[in-house]
């Protein structure tokens, strides 16, 4: 069967993009006021440990943020900095903050994409199986596993996986993204990264796997009782095809939106996973910024991560009507 295809009306796209821009503006304003809450001198708070040593840096920050200006001017300056992607300079890293964040982003995206795929694939398999064996042993086992994954702190799962798979079994490295000795490119290089990726990606996936399993199970139970499933059976097609083609397609559509809303969760979780596994992404960068009390870097990461979530949700909003023919566009 061919994939459904549809053209999106410009009005719809325009409206969604405008909404996204307004959301980003709102997030920037929240961050600005968060900064205002910091006790003591704003410049010193912004600079954290890096600033106390360097008077020139403090003066620089005051000027850049317009800290001696009235509040609304400070807000305007703050918004301009974000809009122009001019987030300042990090002394510790010797780079502008935007380059710093952008250079760490790919590692986080790789980790996030891998764990989303793992969570979706296993969650769908589990959910469909549980629904097809409703109230029988496989269903109960899967539901129990899902509940356990849902209730376990992810960073602890990460540590336990390091203990079992790295320390005891020696199957995977304890952290990092690549071995110093490994070749830079080629199949060997890719394999090296994959070896490092496996444990953190699984760790990140468990919690969402639990959510997706429950959603798919509930969706499948609902869809499997619908009339068109009986009609499909009356055509003589196999149970396998009824489940994975007719029912699943309808049961997983809402999942697309859920994954979109989980992107923020994955980014937040990355702070923990990347810290546990020394994975060089923005989560680890945020942890380091916390340690050095580098508020400027910290808030920059927060704003840019939120912007990323907004863009991801915008993408989901635009993709959803294309894959779900029954959505009426407003």
């Amino acid at each position, binding site marked *: *069967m061919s994939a459904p295809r549809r053209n999106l009306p410009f009005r719809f796209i325009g409206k969604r993009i405008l909404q996204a821009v307004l959301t980003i503006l709102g997030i920037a304003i929240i961050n600005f006021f968060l900064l205002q809450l910091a006790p003591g001198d704003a410049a010193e708070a912004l600079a954290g440990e890096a600033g106390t040593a360097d008077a020139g840096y403090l003066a620089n920050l005051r000027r850049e943020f317009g800290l001696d200006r009235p509040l609304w001017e400070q807000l305007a300056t703050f918004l301009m900095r974000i809009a122009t992607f001019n987030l300042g300079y990090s002394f510790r890293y010797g780079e502008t903050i935007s380059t710093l964040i952008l250079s760490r982003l790919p590692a986080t995206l790789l980790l996030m994409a891998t764990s989303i795929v793992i969570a979706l694939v296993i969650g769908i398999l589990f959910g469909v199986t549980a629904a097809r064996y409703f109230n029988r042993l496989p269903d109960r086992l899967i539901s129990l596993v899902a509940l356990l994954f849902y209730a376990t702190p992810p960073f602890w799962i990460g540590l336990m996986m390091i203990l079992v798979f790295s320390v005891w079994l020696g199957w995977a490295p304890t952290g990092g993204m690549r071995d110093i000795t490994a070749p830079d490119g080629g199949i060997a290089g890719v394999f090296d990264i994959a070896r490092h990726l496996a444990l953190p990606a699984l760790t990140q996936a468990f919690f969402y796997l639990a959510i997706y399993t429950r959603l798919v199970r509930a969706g499948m139970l609902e869809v499997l009782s*619908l*009339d*068109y499933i009986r009609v499909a059976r*009356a*055509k*003589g*097609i196999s149970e396998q095809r009824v489940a994975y083609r007719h029912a699943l397609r309808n049961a997983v559509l809402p999942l697309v939106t859920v994954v979109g809303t989980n992107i923020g969760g994955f980014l937040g979780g990355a702070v923990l996973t990347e810290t546990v596994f020394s994975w060089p992404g923005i989560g680890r960068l945020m942890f380091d910024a916390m340690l050095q009390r580098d508020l400027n870097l910290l808030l920059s990461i927060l704003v840019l991560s939120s912007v990323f979530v907004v863009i991801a949700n915008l993408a989901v909003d635009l993709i959803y009507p294309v894959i779900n023919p029954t959505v009426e566009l407003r």
Partner: protein
Amino acid sequence: MSAPLLSIADLKVRIRGNPQARLLRGVSLSIDRGETLAVVGESGCGKSLTSLAVMGLLPDGLEKSGGVIRFDGADLPVTDNEAMRKVRGRRIGMVFQEPMAALNPVFSIGDQVAEVIHEHEAVSHAAAMARVVDLLTQVQLPEPARIIHEYPHRLSGGQRQRVVIAMALACRPDLLIADEPTTALDVTVQAQIMRLLHDLQDDMGIAILLITHNLGLVAQMADRVAVMYAGRKVEEATTRMLFAAPQHPYTRGLLAATPRPGRRRPGEPPLTEIPGVVPAITEMPSGCRFRPRCMLASDICALEDPPFVDGVACHRAVSRELVP
């Protein structure tokens, strides 16, 4: 005379693991090639379960506990899902009551109809699609070449039912089971769909098992009629005989409740409903199950469920010979 196309003998269905909950209590029906048999009765008397049992599609939690179903001279392996897949859609097509919910919302019409063809025949996608267009033309859908690309939510109820009929007929089955195919549609569309089924039957020579509680449709369509009540057949006759001389008090009640166009003269009593409702499976009366609602009931009716003799299952039936 040759063997019937489909014969159901003493079909019993119950709730799994509960011998008390007898939903079908020995239903027997038969249909010849090209014939139309109507099965009538109020809601809940087992019409749908009978047809689902034939398709091997009984709902979870129900099981066939007895009886033999023969189709085209061989036993129908209704409990063997893999074997039944070769029958469903290919030898027996089925049309359900709810056209609005009968099509999968995420697949195009063309894909859904073509799926039956692909399942049962080795044809190319292009050939299948060409056949889908022919089928949609046959069921009189406008612009079939456009409709194959549409999604179900863009079609009206009547149009969707035509698609379901096209799907059921795609592999030229010998038997079409139509379970209340027009109940959910409004009156003018009902008439169109019934005419369509009638015409298709003339063209293709298929047999139709028509399930309905609309006796008006029965009069137009059916060769023979079986009346069901509370899980069993209580009367069977040719359509003409049934309308002319109904024997079972239940049948007479049904007929009295049916408007017959052109038959109602001034002064004729208005339509009468049968008093009461079909009892729930847990509250079935002893003896004849129609007894609490029957005006003719006597002592013997409470003692024994009447056997099916000479086309009727009733202790108090008026013999056809005596009807003027």
